[in-house]
């Protein structure tokens, strides 16, 4: 147990005492207490920067279930540290923001902060775990806490819908991921990530390689909202804005990115991984940015923008994975560097933009851009922050988004140089899609700022008179926006401390032999640099498109995209129809009629036993060892058979009872014939008693239902009963014949020999019943006793089924 272990567990423990703060110290906003923990964690994690920058990896081992290879190991390398700093750092800002965003008298804050701390601990667990199973446990905890946070205002229908949707999609991905991890265990015999990476040649040569990759990617894509699993993210915007800022822009949605990056050493270098990751990433980038433009809700724009940006990071990771194929030459690793850099940048500007959206919502009462406008003069600070965030997102100099966008364009251009993986023919798509998507990104970034803060002020549309937000609410986005500017002007303060160790985690030295990545991010590359002209053209076309927005926005209605994302039709169709369809399917066999269930059971019996009998050659008939059958036996059996056949055709109940007991008495006669006096006596007496009981019950049948109808005849029943009879007969004959083939000595001889000497009796049957096998008899009389008491309680206790309730 190290301090890093405690750092992961601390938020969970802290969550437990949050309700105490909420109830006991109600005069102070609970968020102020909560603020302490992420701050401490952030500062603590900062102390690792020098160690990690030196290229070291901090590991701590802690056994959990060693027999299954599941251990709570900490693996803190550059990638994990980057994520951990994002989680705690933005966590601090989000908690501070939420103190001013959530009203302490109207909201149930203890729930909010409990879930938030749970999420923070789970997210730290995901990024710091060195063991895949532990990673999975924390992964599911993030899904759970995320759903709880989305459904925070659970009295709203849309919140519940969004929570359920995100839960279903991310948990199904999580399950797939669990299966993928299990397959990795099958291949390598370990869940420890470093050990799996060490056995990368085992994994890549295995036949399970492709299924594993697909399963793991399914998990990563659902979590990181890649197409077509992105639909949960826009609906997750029903969560309080601090949650959206924290979970759905900066941290949780990047868990999938983290997983792809973390397992890149295992899978990269194969064309399937390259195409899946970069293909899905690019399409998500395009789809997200294209759809963001048509949104009218601030948070919806940001949601689709997040989808698009996540696709962008994913595509960079995909292109970067080609580096493994080319021996990690410096040029091919640039895409991964860009991915890591953009990951940081996205967290900063998207976090600030969400907070801005929250401020606008908080101060005006609406997030609809059709109602907003002209807020610049009311909220100058918010406007400034949003300008910085949106321009950074659009990729405009001098903000950090510009740098990562240029690196992105450069790496996409560089992707055309890849000659393997069929890239000669399809490679040209990469920069084209990137360019188109960047234009749309520019357009929606402009919409976000100018539709909200410029244009006509519409006071009649707004619920409140807009004014600037309180200082506490402004501080977090100001910090993020200053980071945007800081990283924009001085990008290299991160390159050796954070980015290089992170890239080293994606390209481990043990595999690549590359000790040192030369990362130097700069804004100006000279005129001989194609991404520069791409950026200029993006801005030019983007401005043009923004100005002509109303003219070409009809295309969304034409493409039928104006209402909701078409993938939602699939999701809603499945979720809404699965229960009725299941009900219909269930109703087919479950008729509620006992006779149908009996028919299933007998058919199943015939099919299963019959198949087994004939498939394994169990069928045999042997007449050698058969005793001679006397003529009276023939006669008796013929009479029994005849009367048994006649019973179903009798229409009168009394006659049917008499006929049945007739068969019973004949069976007693059979016992006499086969020299079983005890059985014959018992059979006679039991038959008499049961006949009396039958008659008694028949007498008590209620008047109304005394129908003397003929038994219903059905061909299926006939076939089933003949089948069962034939099968049982066959089994009996076969077991006799096979028993003769391999005869075992019968135990009967022992009883016959020892009955007198050991049991003191000459009636062997009785001695067996009371002496040799007395236990059976004892429990049989117990059964009789229970039956008797059961009948009494059925008749005497006239319960009508409501007593227990």
């Amino acid at each position, binding site marked *: 147990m190290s301090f890093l272990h405690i750092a992961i567990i601390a938020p969970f423990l802290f969550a437990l005492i949050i309700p105490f703060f909420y109830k006991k110290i109600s005069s102070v906003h609970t968020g102020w207490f909560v603020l302490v923990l992420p701050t401490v964690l952030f500062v603590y994690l900062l102390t690792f920067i020098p160690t990690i920058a030196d290229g070291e990896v901090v590991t701590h081992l802690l056994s959990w279930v060693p027999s299954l290879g599941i251990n709570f190991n900490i693996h803190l390398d550059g990638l994990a540290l980057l994520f951990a700093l994002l989680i705690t750092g933005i966590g601090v800002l989000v908690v501070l923001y939420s103190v001013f965003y959530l009203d302490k008298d109207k909201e149930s804050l203890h729930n909010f902060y409990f879930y938030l701390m749970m999420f923070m601990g789970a997210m730290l667990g995901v990024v710091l775990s060195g063991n895949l199973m532990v990673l999975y446990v924390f992964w599911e905890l993030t899904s759970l806490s995320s759903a709880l946070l989305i459904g925070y205002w659970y009295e709203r229908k849309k919140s519940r819908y969004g929570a359920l949707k995100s839960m279903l999609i991310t948990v199904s991905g999580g399950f797939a991921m669990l299966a993928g991890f299990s397959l990795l265990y099958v291949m390598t015999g370990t869940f420890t990530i470093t050990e799996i990476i060490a056995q990368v040649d085992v994994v890549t040569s295995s036949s399970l390689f492709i299924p594993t990759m697909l399963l793991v990617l399914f998990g990563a894509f659902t979590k990181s909202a890649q197409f077509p699993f992105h639909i949960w993210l826009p609906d997750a915007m029903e969560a309080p804005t601090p949650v959206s800022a924290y979970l759905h822009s900066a941290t949780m949605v990047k868990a999938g990115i983290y997983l792809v990056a973390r397992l890149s050493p295992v899978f990269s270098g194969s064309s399937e991984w390259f195409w899946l990751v970069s293909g899905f990433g690019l399409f998500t980038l395009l789809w997200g940015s294209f759809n963001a433009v048509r949104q009218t809700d601030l948070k919806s724009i940001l949601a689709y923008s997040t989808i698009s940006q996540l696709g962008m990071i994913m595509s960079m990771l995909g292109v970067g994975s080609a580096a493994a194929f080319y021996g990690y030459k410096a040029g091919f690793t640039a895409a991964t560097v860009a991915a890591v850099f953009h990951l940081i940048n996205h967290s900063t500007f998207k976090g600030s933009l969400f907070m801005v959206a929250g401020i606008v919502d908080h101060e005006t009462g609406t997030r609809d851009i059709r109602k907003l406008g002209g807020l610049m003069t009311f909220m100058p600070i918010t406007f400034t922050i949003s300008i910085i965030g949106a321009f950074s997102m659009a990729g405009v100099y001098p903000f950090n988004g510009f740098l990562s966008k240029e690196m992105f364009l450069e790496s996409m251009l560089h992707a055309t140089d890849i000659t393997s993986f069929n890239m000669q023919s399809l490679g040209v798509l990469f920069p084209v899609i990137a360019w188109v998507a960047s234009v749309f990104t520019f357009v929606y970034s402009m919409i976000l700022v100018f539709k909200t803060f410029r244009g006509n002020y519409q006071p009649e549309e707004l619920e409140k008179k807009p004014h600037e937000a309180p200082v506490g609410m402004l501080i977090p986005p100001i910090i993020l926006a200053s980071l945007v500017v800081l990283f924009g002007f001085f990008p290299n303060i991160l390159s050796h401390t954070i980015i290089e160790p992170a890239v080293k985690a994606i390209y481990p030295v043990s595999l690549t032999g590359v000790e040192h990545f030369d990362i130097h991010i700069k804004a100006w590359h000279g005129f001989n640099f194609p991404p520069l002209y791409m950026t200029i053209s993006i801005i030019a076309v983007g401005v043009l498109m923004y100005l002509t927005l109303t003219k070409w926005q009809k295309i969304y209605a034409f493409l039928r995209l104006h209402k909701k994302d078409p993938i939602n039709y699939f999701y809603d169709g499945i979720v809404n129809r699965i229960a009725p369809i299941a009900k219909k399917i269930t109703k087919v066999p479950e008729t509620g009629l006992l006779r149908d269930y009996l028919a299933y059971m007998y058919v199943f019996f015939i099919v299963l036993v019959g198949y087994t009998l004939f498939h394994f050659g169990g069928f045999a008939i042997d007449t050698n060892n058969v005793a001679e059958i006397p003529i009276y036996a023939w006669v008796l059996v013929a009479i029994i058979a005849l009367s048994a056949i006649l019973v179903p055709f009798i229409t009168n109940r009394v006659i049917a009872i008499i006929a049945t007991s007739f068969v019973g008495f004949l069976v007693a006669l059979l016992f006499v014939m086969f020299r079983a006096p005890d059985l014959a006596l018992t059979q006679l007496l039991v038959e008499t008693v049961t006949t009396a009981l039958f008659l008694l019950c028949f007498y008590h049948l209620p008047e109304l239902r005394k129908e003397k109808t003929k038994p219903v005849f059905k061909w299926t029943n006939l076939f089933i009963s003949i089948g069962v009879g034939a099968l049982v007969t066959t089994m009996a004959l076969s077991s006799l014949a096979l028993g003769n083939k391999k005869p075992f000595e019968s135990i009967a001889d022992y009883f016959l020999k020892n009955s007198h000497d050991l049991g003191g009796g000459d009636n062997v049957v009785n001695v067996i019943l009371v002496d040799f096998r007395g*236990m059976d008899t*004892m429990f049989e009389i117990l059964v009789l006793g229970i039956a008797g008491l059961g009948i009494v309680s059925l008749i005497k206790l006239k319960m009508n089924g409501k007593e227990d309730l």
Partner: protein
Amino acid sequence: MKNNISVHTITRIAVFIILSFAVFLLFAGHNNPGGGFIGALMTASAIVLLYISFDLQTIKKVLSFYFPYLIGTGLLIAMGTGISSMFFGYPFLTQFFDHAHIPILGNVELTTALVFDLGVYIVVVGVTLLIITTIAEDDS
């Protein structure tokens, strides 16, 4: 119910014959066909005969057994024989027998299995009569 003297008279005689046969079956069981189960059913049928020829209430006054107690007693006897062997260090339900010379009766075989059978007998009598009387008494 009409007074049916001939039935009553025959029943009175027949019941004793049946009951003695039932007791015979119970005791003969160890060496000849018979035993607790059959003896009990025979006893029950004798009492059922009484129920049929007389009134249910009348017979209940004469034979005022509470049948659930009978079942419990029988089970206790059967289990008691099993447990008693454990006091002497033998496994559960070990049966013993010995031949004893008793005046008048002569050489008699005494066995614990008979006690067990007696338990069976009491349970089966109790159960059979309990079921029949309960169903017969039910008016609803």
